[in-house]
């Protein structure tokens, strides 16, 4: 085998090694170190370095270096002159990328050569990808003592193209990561301000109804707990909490006197009040919510599985799951807070109401989820005890727990249907 054949084979193998290193090494600096090894080992060079070029700042940053010790700086600022030269348009406005390759990169090459000549650098190979300078490879003399040939320079360029692509891809990846991070932050900020707006809305709704202070917020909380108990994902749970906050937003268009009437309202007033789900839907519909079903939760939170709800009298399976949850959370809060014309119910009464109305006013699966969550909190199995905090520590007494457990068992087996049907419509 002739010497030149041997060298060509070595160089071919090196190209394969280089491709492998660039493709398979996930750590950027490790990848560049290996690439430098390949270049040096292909030509038998003892000193060399790879630097990446930051187009924005004009700084060359050394990523890998061998054989120079501490004799070169970590970064080199490329003077404006050669940057403009490399820019090709010479107007220095940075508008065009580093185009017009050959003669302009010769400027960069020359500049670096001047600076590093004393350190023993003999060849400078600019790394250019799609007309853009992404870095340089600096090479010291060959260990053989033989001067660089034209073939050596070509080989350095050929290897350099791969290294350049490696640098370029890494740069793109960093850019994508940076943008993704920025977008995430932006999204979090927007979500934050959306939530603040929602809370402000909820506060406005509750302000209008002086007897139900904090009602919207509690319905949001209960809805969230029920949904989580039903195995909903984080996003959906977040959505239903917002649905809960906003379910009564339509009350903003209902006459304040009707909402605040300290007595039972008449039929006319009632139909006025019953406009609020549809009005809420109209208010929420034009808003771009991060979650899809929120307007529907407002619209259907007074629907009932038995079809006797309003505004549309939908039947069980026609009611969106979110609306069923908000509906129960709404009723549960109404039962468990004092109103101007009545005191709140005892927990025994609430359990009895759930039993009587499951399958009629409430979806049994949703009732089961709420009961399970209550049972877990009452037994101290979940921390923090969010519902107990809202209801008061002693609201669910120990002696009511067997009835709660029985209700869960009956609802799950469908046994409540016979009892409920036997007792007839309430």
């Amino acid at each position: 085998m002739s010497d030149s054949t041997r060298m060509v084979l070595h160089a071919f193998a090196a190209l394969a090694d280089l491709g492998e290193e660039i493709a398979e090494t996930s750590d950027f600096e490790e990848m560049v170190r290996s690439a430098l090894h390949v270049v040096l080992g292909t030509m038998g060079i003892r000193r060399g370095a790879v630097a990446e070029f930051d187009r924005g700042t004009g700084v060359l940053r050394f990523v890998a270096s061998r054989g120079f010790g501490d004799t070169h700086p970590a970064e080199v600022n490329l003077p404006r002159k050669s940057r403009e030269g490399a820019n090709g348009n010479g107007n220095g406005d940075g508008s065009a990328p580093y185009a017009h390759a050959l003669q302009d990169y010769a400027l960069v090459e020359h500049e670096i050569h001047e600076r590093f000549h004393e350190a023993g650098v003999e060849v400078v190979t600019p790394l250019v990808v799609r007309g853009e300078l992404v870095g340089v490879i600096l090479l010291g003399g060959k260990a053989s003592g033989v001067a660089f040939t034209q073939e050596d320079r070509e080989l350095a360029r050929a290897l350099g193209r791969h290294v350049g692509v490696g640098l370029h891809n890494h740069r793109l990846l960093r850019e994508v990561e940076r943008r993704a991070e920025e977008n995430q932050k932006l999204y979090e900020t927007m979500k934050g301000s959306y939530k603040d707006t929602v809370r402000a809305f909820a506060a406005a709704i509750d302000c209008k109804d002086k007897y139900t202070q904090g009602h919207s917020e509690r319905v949001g909380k209960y809805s969230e707990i029920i949904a989580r108990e039903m195995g909903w994902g984080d996003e959906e749970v977040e959505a239903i909490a917002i649905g809960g906050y906003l379910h009564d937003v339509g009350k903003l268009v209902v006459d304040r006197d009707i909402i605040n009437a300290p007595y039972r309202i008449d039929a006319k007033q009632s139909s006025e009040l019953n406009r609020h789900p549809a009005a809420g839907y109209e208010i929420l519909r034009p808003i771009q919510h991060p979650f899809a079903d929120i307007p529907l939760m407002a619209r259907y939170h007074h629907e009932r599985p038995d079809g006797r709800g309003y505004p549309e009298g939908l039947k069980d399976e026609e009611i969106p799951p979110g609306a069923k949850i908000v509906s129960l959370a709404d009723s549960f809060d109404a039962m468990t807070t004092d109103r101007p014309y009545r005191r709140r119910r005892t927990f025994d009464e609430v359990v009895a109401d759930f039993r009587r109305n499951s399958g009629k006013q409430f979806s049994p699966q949703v009732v089961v989820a709420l009961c399970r969550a209550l049972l877990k909190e009452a037994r101290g199995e979940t921390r923090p005890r969010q519902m107990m905090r809202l209801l008061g520590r002693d609201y669910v007494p120990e002696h009511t727990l067997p009835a709660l457990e029985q209700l869960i068992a009956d609802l799950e087996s469908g046994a409540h249907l016979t009892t409920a049907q036997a007792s007839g419509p309430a």
Partner: protein
Amino acid sequence: MSEPLAEPTTAQAVVDVAVVYAGDYVNKMSGQRIERECLTRMERGCRALVINFQDTELVNSIGVSILLGVIDAAEQSGTRLAFSNVSVHTLKLFELLGLTRLVVLADSEEAALATLEEFSATPPGH
């Protein structure tokens, strides 16, 4: 990748010589192992080193670069370095790439040790 350091023979220990075995394929992984072993020996004061290539069939570009780094480190620490048992094919490559100009070459480990012992008897600067 945590092969123990090659134990020096009695003779090696007397004159502070160490032998490192290169393995069958000198690439990035095995090259780094060789480099680590050599640097550790130098740090411990060893001033004569033999890298034995008896099993080596192939040295790739990264392997060559790492060996050049070992040569650099040896020069800097004043350590005499010998390559022994290099196959014809690898020897040719080392010649073309200039490595053979920088190290003592020996046909066998014993010959390499003998050359380095000679050297160690008259350390530089004495």
